[in-house]
């Protein structure tokens, strides 16, 4: 059953059909949020907020793009809001935090090194490039859908992606 059919069914009163949409897309939304926030608990919150907002505003889904793309747009906004809130909350100086409360780096886990570095580096990309990479690699959206979500041209989305990837490659080679 196509997503659009399920959306129509939910709007016609069959609320249980929404669970199929959640099941289909929760991993995509979680991957997007996790890439954006680098935190499973925060990503989980974004997933829940995204689906609740999607349900509430289901009548706004116009079917111009795929449901997944529409959902990713909501998720990206939620993740951005969450990230801004976290940045505001991080006004406490690290010096004020007890040593035991600081995250511990596990030096004996080299297999996670590349993964951690990549996540950190994606987080350091300029916002537009981070969004494009996250939507492309994390959510597998087409450049057309990404362009629509970001309000840019398809070629601009590709150029941003190109810059992001070459920057990540340079950073991976040159930084630890």
């Amino acid at each position, binding site marked *: 059953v196509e997503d*659009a059919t399920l*959306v*129509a069914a*939910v*709007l*016609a*009163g069959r*609320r249980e059909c*929404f*669970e199929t949409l*959640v*099941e289909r897309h*929760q*991993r995509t939304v*979680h*991957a997007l949020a*996790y890439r954006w926030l680098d935190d*499973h608990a925060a*990503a*989980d919150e974004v*997933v*829940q907020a995204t*689906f*609740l907002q999607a*349900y*509430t*505003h*289901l*009548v706004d*889904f*116009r*079917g*111009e793009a795929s449901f997944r793309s529409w959902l990713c747009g909501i998720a990206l906004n939620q993740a951005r809001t969450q990230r801004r809130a976290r940045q505001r909350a991080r006004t406490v100086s690290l010096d004020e935090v007890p040593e035991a409360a600081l995250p511990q780096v596990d030096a004996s886990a080299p297999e996670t090194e*590349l*993964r951690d570095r*990549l*996540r950190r580096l*994606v987080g350091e990309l300029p916002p537009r490039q981070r969004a494009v*990479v996250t939507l*492309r*690699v*994390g959510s597998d959206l087409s*450049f057309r859908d990404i362009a629509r979500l970001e309000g840019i041209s*398809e*070629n601009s989305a*590709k*150029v941003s*992606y*190109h*810059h992001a*990837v*070459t920057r*990540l*490659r340079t950073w*991976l080679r040159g930084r630890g």
Partner: protein
Amino acid sequence: MAAGAGLMWRGWTCRRLSGRLVDLADGTLDAAERSRLTSHLARCSDCAAAVAALQDVPALLREAEDPPGGEGFWRAQRDAIMQGVRGLPPPAASLPHGRGYRARGPGWMAWAPALAAAAVVVAAVVLRAPPPAPERAVVPATGVETLDDPTLLSLSDLAGSSMPDVERGADVLEDDRPLPELSNDELDALAQLVGVRER
């Protein structure tokens, strides 16, 4: 100098190719364009390295996925979402049954009838308004030099014969024909507009 120009040209070309290199790495180019780009890559190490990065880095990023758990995690998350959903009113509660999902046109289309009615009203107001002040009222009578200005002279000469706007305005003022009849939709939209204005 020539080498500098060559580098500049190459940089310009490469920037233009940026999006195409992404397509090449994704394998979405047709054969002719792929061949053209491949021959460029043979001459341009920067673009060749970019294509390699466009193939390798996304693969690394996908490998770096860190899924949070097994099916139990997703099941629990789904349950939590559906519990939240059950506490919400139905999304289409305010719409007639089955009317919720539809492909909609641009938002301005909803305003089209009101805009059409507004255009009719504006046209009526303009056509019924008093005629604009005559052109000569703005001509300063300052002297022969001014009147000798060829532009002003041509205006004076034309006033009696080919000043179409002035002539037409006078005709319309004396025209007692009724305005075009409005449709019900236009009248409704007009009533709405008037209501808004009165508020």
